[in-house]
Each structure stands twice: as C-alpha cells, then as structure tokens.
C-alpha cells in the first residue's frame, strides 16, 4: 500500500473509510427489521421447545440408553470447532505478520464469540436437569475431561471477548466524537463508556498493543486446548471410532475447515449487504480461499490416517463401526461429507476462479454444512454400537433419530448464534477502522483534534 502523503488526502480517505464502515451501524431499513423479527421468532420457538424438554424430560429427545449423546453434542462439537477460527485468524495470522488477516479478524472474532457462547449453552440444553450444571462446581472431578472442557470453554470465551473488545477501543473513541455520521445517540453513549476515555496518546497505544499481544499469545494454547480437550471427551473412552490417538489434531484441523468457511460466508454477506466491496476485496477472498484449501488438505490428511489405518487392520469392533460408515446405514452421509464436503472443495478451490467471492462462498456453504454432518457422524454411529449385549430393549433404543424438539432446539442454537453476530455487526464496525487506516499509512493521531502528546 503506497502511503498517502498530504494530511488533507489522509483525512479524506479516513473519512470515507469511517463513513463506509459505519453504514451497517446506521442503516435501519425494512430488511434489517425483518431479519431481527425472524431471529426473535426462531429464538422464541426454540426456547418454547426447551421449556417442553425441561418440563417432560429428555424423553422427548431421540436419546435413549445406548445413544445418550445425540444431535446436541454434535452441535456442541460443531460450535466449538467453528469458534476456533478466531484464534487462527486474529492471533496466528497476526503474529505471523500476515497483513490481510487484519481485515477479517473482527469477522473471525464475531464468529468465535457467537459460536463458543452457544457451545456453552447447548451443553446445558443437553441436560435433562439444567440446574445440575452447578454440580460441576460442587462435585466436579479434576480428573474428568468434562471439567477441563468447561474450564477451557469459559477461558476461551473470555479471551475471545477481550480480543474482540481491545482493538475496538480506538474505533469507539473515534466514533464517539463524530456527530455527522448519523449514529444513534444511545450507541454513541455506549461507545463513550466502552472507549474508556481513549485519547490515542502514545502511552495508551503502547498499553493497548501490549495487552493485545499478551492475549494473542495466550489464545494459542487455549485455542488449541479447547478443541483438543473436546476431542478428549471422546478419545478418553474405549469406544471404537473414538479410541484413537490422533483425535485431538484431527478435531483441530477439522475446526479450521469449518471456521474458515464460516468466515468466508460472513465476509460475503457483509460485502453484499453493506456494500463493502472495497474492504472485503476479491484479494481477501482469494487469500481466504487459499487458507481454506490449506486447512482442508491438512484435514484430508488426518482423515486418511483416521480411516485408512484402522480400515487396513479391521479389528473386530473397529471393523463393524467402519463397515457401518463405509457401506452401512451411514454410508451415503459419510461419502457425501468426505467427497462433496472435502475432496471436491479442495479440487475446486485450487483454481483461481473458484476463489472469487461468489463461487468461494457457495463452496464454503457446502463445506460448512458438511462439517456439521461430519460432527454428527463422529458422535452417533459410535454410540449405536456399544458392544455391550443389547438385549430385550425396545427397537427404538437401538437406533437414534433426532426428534422435532431436538431439531427445534438445534435451530434455536444456530439462530441465537446468528443473532449474536447480527447484534455485534449492528453495534460495532465489522473492520477495525484504525488498523485499516494504519495500513494505508494514515496517522490517526495527527488527524484527531487533540493536541499531540507523542
């Protein structure tokens, strides 16, 4: 980016950026209202489903003695997976000094916050007696992966929120002072509180950079742990399909696939809806496409390990499980997920054409849906083969199919995640204005009315 020299030009560019990026915050049209109306409707329906479930117990779900983890846990794993992209983009890319990542890092953080928050919620929804969640604190066992998982989810959520908030401060300070943008008063009042009296002096910037750096370093082990520990919930059992040593990295790799595709879709939505073509450029899609193909390849590598090696040996129990996936009742889902959801996207995105915004978004949507089904395939088929004598139990204990209540509650989780993202997008700029300005060589400090301190 060639630096813009004259302060006047700089100011002009900055004003334009600020104007463009605050449109989502200002915009209040029919479509927005309708969208929020839809979200609220679905959230209400979902909560109603949850009330029924609390009232009548988990019997209203398809879960029984053998398959005791159903769609909810698949959702949980999916949400944790998607949230991991926050750490990859806003920390790893940042620390590697890959500059295009800055433009998408707030999008990634939005997704991370929404997804990890809902991961926590869906776990509580999976409990017949949600009040017993507190037992984790009263009777939790330190040796249990469940405790580790709860700890790491809470920690990751906190870090994600902070990592979303910190880079927001300079932007908020700038928007708080601008009256000509048409930002509603209450939002500006909110900015005023949240911007902590930011003046943009050197000492503040130094502290901000320092804090962000600490978080970015911290989120790497925490981010890796969150999905590794989630995988241990499975891998620390003896069940075929879960009893494997590579489940941790396998989950992490799969998580990047799901998260990267989610980021691409959201970028595209913002670009289209808010006319941000100049900010989410074709270049960014191209780079995200390359990232997606890279993580897909890593995931493919793990998939080959995960299925080829046990498939070669076909140990008794493992064999039954694998045959069920390869040729049995789950084979169509399995092969669709592997071929259409993984191999085909890799083959396509390698070509530049498919890294253009629209084709890439469509491919990402397919990948994301496949990622959800992949989680379903990880959780349920294994449970349907408990390798215990399944005797004298009703037929429907042996197979699992989600009920309409489960589907309603699942829908709730997704809609609630979308609602969180929508609210964040309506409250705060979707790209860090000051980082963008900095990238363009504009010195915000010089342009603010404050006397220079540095």
């Amino acid at each position, binding site marked *: 980016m060639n630096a813009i020299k004259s302060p006047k030009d700089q100011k002009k560019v900055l004003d334009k950026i600020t104007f463009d990026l605050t449109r989502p915050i200002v915009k209040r049209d029919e479509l927005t209202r309708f969208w929020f109306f839809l979200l609220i409707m679905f959230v209400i329906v979902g909560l109603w489903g949850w009330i029924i479930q609390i009232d009548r117990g988990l019997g209203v779900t398809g879960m029984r003695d053998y398959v005791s983890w159903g769609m909810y846990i698949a959702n949980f794993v999916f949400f944790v997976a998607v949230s991991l992209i926050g750490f990859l983009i806003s920390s790893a890319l940042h620390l590697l000094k890959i500059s295009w990542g800055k433009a998408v890092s707030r999008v990634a953080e939005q997704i991370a916050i929404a997804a990890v928050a809902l991961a926590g919620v869906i776990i509580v929804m999976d409990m017949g007696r949600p009040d017993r969640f507190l037992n984790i604190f009263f009777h939790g066992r330190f040796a249990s992966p469940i405790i580790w998982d709860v700890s790491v989810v809470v*920690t990751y959520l906190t870090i994600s929120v902070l990592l979303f908030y910190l880079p927001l401060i300079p932007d908020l300070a700038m928007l708080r002072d601008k009256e000509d943008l048409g930002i509603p008063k209450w939002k500006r009042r909110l900015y005023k509180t949240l911007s902590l009296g*930011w003046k943009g002096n050197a000492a503040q910037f130094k502290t901000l950079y320092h804090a962000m750096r600490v978080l970015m370093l911290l989120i790497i082990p925490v981010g890796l742990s969150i999905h590794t520990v989630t995988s241990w919930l499975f891998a620390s059992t003896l069940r075929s399909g879960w009893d494997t040593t590579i489940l941790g990295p396998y989950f992490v790799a799969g998580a990047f696939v799901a998260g990267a595709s989610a980021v691409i879709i959201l970028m595209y939505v913002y670009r289209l809806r808010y006319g941000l073509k100049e900010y989410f450029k074709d270049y960014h899609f191209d780079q995200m496409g390359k990232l997606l193909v890279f993580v897909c390849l890593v995931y493919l590598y793990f998939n080959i390990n995960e299925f080829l090696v046990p498939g070669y040996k076909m140990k008794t129990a493992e064999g039954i499980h694998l045959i069920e996936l390869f040729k049995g009742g789950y084979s169509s889902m399995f092969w669709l997920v592997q071929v259409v959801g993984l191999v085909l996207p890799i083959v396509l995105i390698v070509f530049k054409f498919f890294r253009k915004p629209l084709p890439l978004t469509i491919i990402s949507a397919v990948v994301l849906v496949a990622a959800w089904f992949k989680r379903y395939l990880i959780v349920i088929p294994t449970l349907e083969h408990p390798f215990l004598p399944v005797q004298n139990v009703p037929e429907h204990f042996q197979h699992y199919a989600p009920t309409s209540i489960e589907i309603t509650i699942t829908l709730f989780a997704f809609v609630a995640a979308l609602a969180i993202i929508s609210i964040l997008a309506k409250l705060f700029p979707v790209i860090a204005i000051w980082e963008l300005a900095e990238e363009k060589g504009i010195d915000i400090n010089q342009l603010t009315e404050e006397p220079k301190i540095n």
Partner: protein
Amino acid sequence: MRNLIRYIFITLLVFSFLNSNSQEWVVADDIASIQNPSPYTLQNVNKGKELYLKNCKSCHGDAGKNNALPLVPIPPDVTSAQMHANSEGALFHKITAGRGTMPQFETSISEDDRWRIVNYIMNFNPANEPLLVDAPKINAKLLGSVNEAEKKVEVLAEFQDKDGIYKKLANTPVFINSKKTFGKIKIGQATTDENGRAVYQIPETVVGDAEGKIDIIISMEDNYTVNELLLENAKVCAPNVAENLFDEAVLWGTNDRLQPWLLVSYLAIAVGAWLAIFYVVFQIVKIKRLGKE
C-alpha cells in the same frame, strides 16, 4: 369357463383366509409333535413357575389375571385358550425362538429349564390335573437368632390354627436370604423339625462385608402370610477381602484419589491462563487511567 371362475374364487378365498391369519404363529408339525422330556411333577412345575416369574411375568402377567403388558400383539395369559392351543413341542419352540417383541430364550434359559416352563404352562391346561393348587394362606410367625460363634442361624416357626392359636410348625421349609439393596438373595433353606425349629449352617463360601457381616432375612413359602424376619449385622461370613479397584490413585480417579501431578498441572494451567487474563484486564484499567492524564 365356469370352472375357471370357481377356481379363481376359491383361490382368492384361500388367500384372504391365509392373509387374515398372518398374525397367527404356526409351528411346523414335526417340531410341534416333540414330546416334553421333563416329567409333569410338582417339582418341575414349581421350578418352571420360578423361571416364569423371573423371565416372563413382566410381559405376560400373572397366571389367570389377564394383566399382560399392552404390547402388539398382546402376550397371551398362561391360562388362556390361545396359549393352550399350542402343543408342548410348539410352546417349547416359541419360547426358544421368540418372534417380534417376544424375545428368544435359547441363549438365556437352558433347554431343561425351558421344558420346565412348559411344565408350568401345562399346569393350566384344561386337560391336566393342576398340580399348583391355591390353598388359603396360613398365618405364620418367625423367631430367630444368630449364633455367630458357630455361624448358624436358628429359627423357630409357628402357625395359627383354625382357633387362632399359634402352634409349632413342623416339616416346613424356611429360607435364609441375604438382604441386598434391591431385595434379597437366597442363601439356602432348612426344614423345621417337629418342634418347629430349624438350624441353618451358613456355608463358608458366603462372603459378607469387610468385617464379614451380612443382613439376614428369613422368609417362607408363598402360601404363608408372615412378617419376614430381619437379623441385621450378623457376623457369620468370611470377610470380604476383595481388592478395591478404586483404592489406587489412577488417572481417572475420584477427587480423593487424584494423582497429584494431574491436579498440579490442571491448576497451573487454569490459574496461569486466568492470571494472564487478569493482567490484560489490568491493562485495560491502565488505558482508562492514561486517558485521564
């Protein structure tokens, strides 16, 4: 032509008949005609009854009460005509093989015992003289004590005669059971002498708790109305010295058997991460302070 129509008509009739009876459970003749090798004696019928109560009653209900579970099709009562339309061989086959909701018992009940269950069902066959007769119940009373030194249980049984007077109950079995969380398990039985007394030697193979104690319940046959006698904390058994698998500190242990390294690692990581978070929060406070300068 006329013949042809008649032929078609008859065929249709036969088919519809077969269809309407597709629910019926037919057993091949050679299987149905197998004779029951287990003789029809009170002992076999009783054994069959015991097995029935344990394995079948939950679905088929009590004999003669028509209180089967409402399954589809409804499991027939053991006294029903439908049940007794079966030959003994057919009954045996159906119990062995099962169909639909009716489970198979080939793998869980031995062949001899399956025949004894047939003996029991045949007790209700109108063609047979019933061996199980429902006599009116007799009131009885049990007294008992534990001889811990000799590891014996001594029982005194009495019954109430027509005039309401308690008399010694001779030549009657009493059952010695061990009390369990969900009911009792029979250890053995003894028969009373002419004085109504019975002595039961607890076998050495019976294992109690860590101190060798068990809770003994003394009970009687179904045809007596009796308050079962509970003798608690009887130290008559071998102590249970089985190694407790949970004693050792293992990776997946409970909190009181946690491996220290695990606790230390967990706390170090969790506390470390949260200290860093608090540090960042502190930086945020600092930013605010710097803004005021």
